[in-house]
């Protein structure tokens, strides 16, 4: 008998949420753009939670991984558009390039920044994000400040119809799949030694070292995993969907802030938190933009402040406490 029966049951609610988004978008086609936005926020939170939630380190340069992933796909499609019959191979190579480039950036950043703690880590990562953007612009790599527009390349590779379907439908489906995959990886980590090491280092890094945990190793594992999912998100939600990439957009710090809000709102370090946070954040942003256009952010800021003060552990963190010891405990993680 396993010591912990049903240890993967917690996947049911989180995967149901992603599936629900997809089904809702199919049933209500005019709501597909809303679904796409919600999926983006859930996926962004899910990917970021792998690092922020599990280690407790706040990366203010997180969007850089999304941005680099966007470039990975953009560069692949624009370079490979001349290759005869490449078709969906280009998509696979683009995703691999996005994942690989984000992973490489995360290793480079992590090797330096993960030696720092707390506020120093946060500040260093802001520098990385801004620095990388100005490096692309200043050194004129990857087309510099002009960015890459590759809608033509997308049509050349896939044909007009498929290219449109990719941008308006499949890109969003990919985002849902990436978010769900990030959730699966999160639970696998939580249930393995990696998760226990990360819990220890999040709670007390010095005590973790003293009991034999090589904290740097586990921080880097979480950082790379989180960055790879961010890169895949960029490759799909931004590159495939928008078919252009432009440095100021790809490295916009605003998205990092949104990612932090989503994770905190839902519950940092929980499995279900990012989905709940993403839905809460996305839906209220959407709703406020309709009822109070122009004022949504002004209204939103105090609401978030109140929620974060009232529920410091996030919505799911609060729920988890409530269901402790009940049959629901296995599902809300």
């Amino acid at each position, binding site marked *: 008998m*396993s*010591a*912990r029966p049903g240890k993967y049951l917690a996947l049911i609610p989180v995967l149901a949420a992603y599936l629900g988004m997809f089904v809702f978008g199919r049933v209500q086609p005019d709501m597909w753009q809303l679904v796409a936005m919600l999926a983006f926020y859930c996926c962004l939170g899910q990917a970021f939670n792998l690092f922020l939630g599990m280690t407790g380190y706040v990366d203010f340069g997180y969007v850089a991984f999304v941005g680099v992933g966007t470039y990975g796909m953009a560069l692949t499609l624009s370079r490979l558009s001349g290759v005869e019959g490449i078709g969906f191979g280009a998509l696979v190579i683009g995703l691999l390039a996005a994942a690989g480039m984000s992973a490489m950036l995360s290793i480079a950043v992590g090797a330096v920044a993960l030696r720092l703690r707390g506020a120093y880590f946060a500040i260093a990562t802001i520098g990385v994000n801004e620095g990388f953007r100005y490096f692309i612009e200043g050194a004129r790599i990857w087309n510099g400040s002009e960015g890459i527009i590759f809608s033509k390349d997308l049509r050349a590779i896939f044909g007009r119809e498929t290219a449109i379907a990719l941008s308006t439908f499949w890109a969003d489906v990919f985002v849902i799949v990436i978010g769900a995959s990030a959730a699966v990886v999160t639970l696998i980590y939580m*249930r*393995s*030694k990696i998760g*226990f*090491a990360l*819990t*220890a280092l*999040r*709670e*007390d890094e*010095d*005590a*973790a*070292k*003293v*009991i*034999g*945990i*090589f*904290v740097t190793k586990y921080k880097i594992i979480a950082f790379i995993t989180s960055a790879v999912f961010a890169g895949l998100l960029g490759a799909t939600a931004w590159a495939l969907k928008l078919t252009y990439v432009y440095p100021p957009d790809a490295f916009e710090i605003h998205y990092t802030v949104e990612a932090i809000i989503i994770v905190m709102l839902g519950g940092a*370090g929980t499995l279900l938190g990012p989905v709940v946070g993403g839905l809460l954040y996305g839906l209220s942003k959407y709703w406020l933009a309709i009822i109070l256009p122009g004022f949504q952010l002004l209204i939103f800021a105090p609401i978030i402040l109140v929620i974060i003060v009232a529920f410091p552990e996030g919505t799911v963190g609060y729920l988890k406490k409530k269901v402790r*010891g009940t049959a629901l405990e296995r599902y809300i993680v």
Partner: protein
Amino acid sequence: MTDLAPLLRLENVTKRFGGLVAVDEVSVEIHHGELFAIVGPNGAGKTTLFNIISGVFIPDEGHVYFEGEDITRLPVYKKAPLGIGRTFQIPRPFGGATVRENIAIGAMFGTLSGKVSVDEAMEIADRYVDLVGLQEHRDKPAGGLTPVDKRLTEIARALAMKPKLLLMDEAMAGMNPRDIDEMVAFLKRIKEEEGVAIIAMVEHIMRAVVGLAERVMVMHQGAKLVDTTTKEALSHPEVIDVYLGKAPE
């Protein structure tokens, strides 16, 4: 060879912070399964010495040998699996994790082979939950426990690492005499059952020192004052001077 070597040997260990000599040429040997106390007033260098043994600080001079092997410059996380467990002055269990998970984390990462699976670690944890008597708190987050239970969680976490040496930083600070006696009895029992040597650091609870330690090192201003049996150490004139001040002449 390893059997003949003392469990832990400090050789002229010195640590300076700027102009302050926190630990001044301390040499001492601790044997397998021994109950040893480091005693000294506030600022004597006890905690610094602990941090040197557990690897938080690297000494400026001198060497630390564990079972005959030089571990002076080994990083903290590599020392624990050799068999060095420690607890902190203010207990530091992982507050968000349950008591059982806390102990399991010790079992998972604190052993040399590193081959303990999560499920095995949970089973090991259950055994130590029973040993420290925290059954009813097993699945509660450690952050919400009383200070004594947090301390027991921390001790269980350290024991789950199968240490040969357990460093206890002010294990009995803030306890009432009854709790102290219970803790002393408990430490003696785990010494017997787990075969672990214990170095307890004590500032001024002599009740604990007398009850627990077979041998005592008294520190004063970073240096070793005496290192002898408990009875002798506590009646040593210099030790009395350190604690009570010199009589006016």
